[in-house]
């Protein structure tokens, strides 16, 4: 009798869970990837101009900024947190880079470092507010969103700062170190690889997932959850800083009024990819796919000359459907 159960159990194993979490994660991503494929095929059929190298590389470039933001925020969302400050925060980092590189005349490297440091600082403050002052992440980062927006305007003196004196700066995003793909795209994929490693293969990632699954149980297991949360938000902040540098490089300038709205796009990408807002479930590959879905969709609609107002409608519906498919699947799994 014991034997028969065992067999049944083993069967199940290979059939469904296999390496449990792994298979589930793959299914998830498979689904998001399916949505992406459907979109690509649809647009390729609908418009001759979609599937050209120039447009594809344009789509990838358009994904870069949102993608990098989404990567960082995947960690935060996996802890059951949220980061609303990434949009304006990115702008503040871009402005910081410009102020140091151009206004202070310190040049490219110090500028970039300053931008990243600014991102780390914001993330650190967010983390301290969330972990030590127990602010709900929504509020802590909403406050930071406002502060960053204000500070970006203040330190830039409410005017764009151009990198015209540092022509090399443009290459960070638009140079082509490898083939003809813009560097920004490479940066996104490299960061994706790093994030994948961090979330899936390191202690950092384990604790990120654990905190999102059950923070109190993690704390009682002897994990210094507060310190780790600060680290997680700081890492997310560094990604924000990188996004800031990339967008500044791409635009050739720091535009202090930019940024609001990017946070929701990035968060949407993360969730479409399969990361759960309830925490405990995060996928980096999914996030990149989610970001690609968003930008393919937007690009495709533009290529097809859909009116801007209808673009909003379609975007909303597709976001819902992309996640719907996932949620229906996991309901069946029950």
């Amino acid at each position: 009798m014991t034997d028969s159960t065992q067999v049944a159990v083993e069967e199940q194993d290979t059939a469904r869970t296999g390496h449990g979490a792994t298979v589930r994660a793959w299914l998830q991503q498979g689904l998001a990837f399916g949505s992406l494929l459907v979109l690509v095929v649809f647009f390729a059929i609908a418009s001759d101009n979609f599937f050209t190298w120039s447009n594809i590389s344009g789509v990838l470039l358009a994904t870069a900024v949102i993608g990098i933001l989404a990567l960082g925020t995947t960690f935060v969302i996996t802890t059951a947190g949220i980061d609303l400050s990434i949009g304006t925060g990115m702008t503040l980092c871009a402005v910081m880079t410009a102020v140091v590189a151009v206004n202070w005349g310190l040049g490219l490297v110090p500028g970039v470092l300053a931008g990243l440091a600014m991102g780390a600082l914001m993330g650190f403050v967010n983390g301290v507010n969330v972990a030590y002052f127990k602010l709900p992440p929504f509020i802590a980062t909403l406050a930071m969103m406002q502060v960053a927006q204000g500070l970006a305007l203040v330190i830039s003196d409410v005017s764009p700062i151009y990198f015209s004196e540092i022509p090399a700066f443009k290459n960070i995003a638009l140079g082509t170190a490898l083939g003809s793909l813009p560097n920004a795209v490479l940066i996104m994929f490299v960061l994706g690889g790093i994030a994948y490693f961090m979330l899936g293969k390191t202690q950092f990632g384990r604790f990120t997932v654990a905190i999102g699954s059950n923070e109190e149980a993690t704390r009682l297991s002897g994990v210094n959850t507060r310190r780790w949360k600060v680290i997680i938000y700081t890492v997310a902040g560094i990604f924000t800083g990188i996004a800031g540098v990339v967008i500044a490089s791409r635009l050739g300038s720091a535009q202090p009024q930019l940024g609001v709205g990017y946070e929701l796009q990035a968060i949407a990408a993360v969730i479409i990819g399969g990361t759960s807002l309830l925490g405990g479930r995060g996928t980096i590959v999914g996030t990149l796919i989610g970001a690609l879905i968003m930008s393919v969709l937007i690009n495709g609609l533009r290529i097809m000359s859909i009116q801007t107002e209808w673009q909003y409608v379609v975007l909303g519906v597709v976001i819902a459907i992309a996640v719907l498919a996932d949620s229906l699947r996991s309901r069946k799994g029950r």
Partner: protein
Amino acid sequence: GCSDSGDGGTTDGGDGGGDAGGDALQIALVSKGFQHQFWQAVEQGAQEAADELDVEVTFEGPAAETEVDAQLQMLQAAIDRSPDAIGYAALDPEACVPLYEAAEAAEIPVVEFDAGCDSDYGQNLAATDGVAAGAIAAEHMAEIIGGEGQVGIVGHSQINSTGVERRDGFVNEIEENWPDIEIVDIQYGDGDHLRSSDIAKAMIAANPDIAGLYGTNEGSAIGIVNAVNELGLAPGEITIVGFDSGSAQVGAIESGVMAGAITQDPIGIGRTVVENAVAAINGEELEEFTDTGSYWYDSSNLEDPEIAPLLYE
């Protein structure tokens, strides 16, 4: 007594003229925005005039030109501060009417700039004719591309008066006078540089033969310039016509990537509104409308004495 600030150098404005009155006149400017270069230039002009006339101005505006409600609250707060005069640039011509009544009740004169309010109480409107400006842009575009081909528009708003006027002026001019030019697409990027460049790239991808692109404000125009640069197109391969000024546009025109652009006179607008406000306080009769004009500039006239002062950074 209208203002309550202590005399003698409280803020930067108080240059201690020591006249009989002592306190400087207070003028509250409520604009449509403050972050864009255009509004920064308006503020600059207002500040210059204020310094000359020895008055104090405050300048504020909502974060986006969609925030009608926020702007009304700013106007309300301005009235409650009881300044000596208010300068207002209406985001919506109707919603401001009740507040104009409140200003009237509080005996605060209101002068207008950029866009007016459908109330009789406001005095003088210092503004540019956006439709005319759009038509000028269209004319130059059409001439440069030789009167035929496809063009696209990257707008900054499908609904704000400036966005609509500049677009409509352009479209009407093309439709009426240039039958061989086809407007293939109009999309809107909210003046966001990044979004505007992605839109421009998509337009170029969708219409490989496109001959010209028109951006209706600084962000839209620079977005197009960035797109063309990113695609590695040679300067002039696609004719770009922009709007407004700023160092990036001037740079793009100098390098030949952009054919030219329309500039308004935001500094002049700022100056005019402050001068008119002071005149209104003094009870002078004001004209109904001051056209501050719009001008085409390209590499040929960048340095002209009439144009150069209009090209704010």
